[in-house]
């Protein structure tokens, strides 16, 4: 018996992973990749007609960031036995596992801002839990992605403050925040989902869902509080962190898909797949 345990070895390839970890890891990576792909599409729909030219340029860049993150994330699935190109370009709408909140278009600039603040930040929080992963391919790719996400958060926080300061726009912003917050919190999943537990036990994901959720709330809570939106959303500062009054609604929740039903529509899936440019795809 020694005083210190040796550091757990890294997993350089998926084939080294315990068998019962591969499926939940694939589920997580696919949910992240699909969410990034669809979020990028939704951002791109809002970049024209933005309040200012600079805001539109930044939204365009963020949309491209999201697609870059999606591609990087799909590529990880090659090591887990998938064909990333097939995942990107050949699935039907019903096979997409993106954030359920993104099945619908983002409504207006308040919706854009709320999605950037809550959905984008929830995804970043989940990626952060992979930053110190024992699974090296994930660990190696997350830092650059999170560096870019810092700017997405600054953008979202600043626009939240801006819109909240306009009396006739506050209610609309509050409604969009209320629409996305429960979805963001729920998407981070359940601690006791068997696959999620194994990912944490093996050090693939460094925090259980509840800890990721707390970190997400600690990130967005101050912005919601500063803008007077927190109380209406049930977000409160207390003790050493932030909390949400209500538990996520887990009815119908599928831990693997991170959804409770519904589907992306076929037209959006066609855009996500790049159907119009299929003949131009390069290997």
């Amino acid at each position, binding site marked *: 018996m020694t005083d210190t345990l040796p550091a757990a070895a890294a997993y350089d390839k998926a084939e080294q992973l315990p068998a019962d970890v591969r499926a939940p890891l694939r589920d997580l990576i696919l949910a992240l990749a699909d969410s990034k792909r669809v979020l990028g599409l939704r951002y791109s729909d809002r970049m024209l007609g933005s309040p200012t030219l600079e805001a539109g340029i930044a939204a365009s860049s963020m949309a491209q960031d999201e697609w870059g993150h999606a591609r990087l994330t799909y590529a990880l699935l090659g090591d887990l036995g998938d064909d990333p190109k097939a995942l990107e370009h050949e699935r039907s709408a019903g096979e997409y596992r993106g954030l359920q909140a993104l099945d619908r278009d983002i409504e207006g600039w308040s919706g854009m801002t709320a999605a950037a603040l809550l959905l984008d930040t929830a995804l970043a929080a989940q990626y952060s839990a992979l930053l110190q992963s024992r699974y090296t391919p994930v660990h190696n790719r997350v830092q650059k992605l999170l560096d870019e996400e810092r700017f997405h958060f600054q953008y979202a926080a600043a626009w939240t403050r*801006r819109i909240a300061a306009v009396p*006739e726009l506050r209610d609309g912003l509050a409604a969009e925040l209320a629409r996305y917050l429960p979805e963001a919190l729920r998407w981070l999943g359940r601690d006791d989902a068997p696959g999620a537990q194994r990912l944490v036990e093996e050090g693939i994901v460094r925090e259980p869902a509840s800890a990721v959720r707390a970190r997400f709330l600690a990130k967005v809570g101050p912005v919601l509080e500063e803008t007077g939106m927190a109380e209406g959303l049930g977000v409160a500062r207390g003790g050493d962190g932030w909390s949400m009054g209500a538990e996520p609604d887990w009815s119908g929740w599928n831990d693997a898909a991170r959804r409770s039903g519904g589907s992306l529509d076929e037209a959006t899936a066609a855009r996500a797949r790049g159907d119009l440019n299929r003949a131009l795809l390069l290997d």
Partner: protein
Amino acid sequence: MKEPVYEVFARKTREEPLRHIGWVNAMDGDLARVYAWKTYDEQNWAEMCVIPRSAIIPVDPGESQFVTAARDDHEDEIVHSRGTGSYGGGDVAGREGR
């Protein structure tokens, strides 16, 4: 509503001096940082800074593009640019006649 102008400075290596590369309109410093980073991203910058135009004190105001004190309407327009008013945007700032 007028948005302040932020001047953007950057350098590609730590050894070279910061140089002026452009400007952005932004309502605060946080957004100016994001806009600058996203607008002037064609280079792999080692460092980028934004500075409110109003904070720059030209040695010779008559010769400088950076006017610091909004003493009359002309200078106010230089410190605060409407810049994107023809963009047609919308649902937030449009009510203010941009």
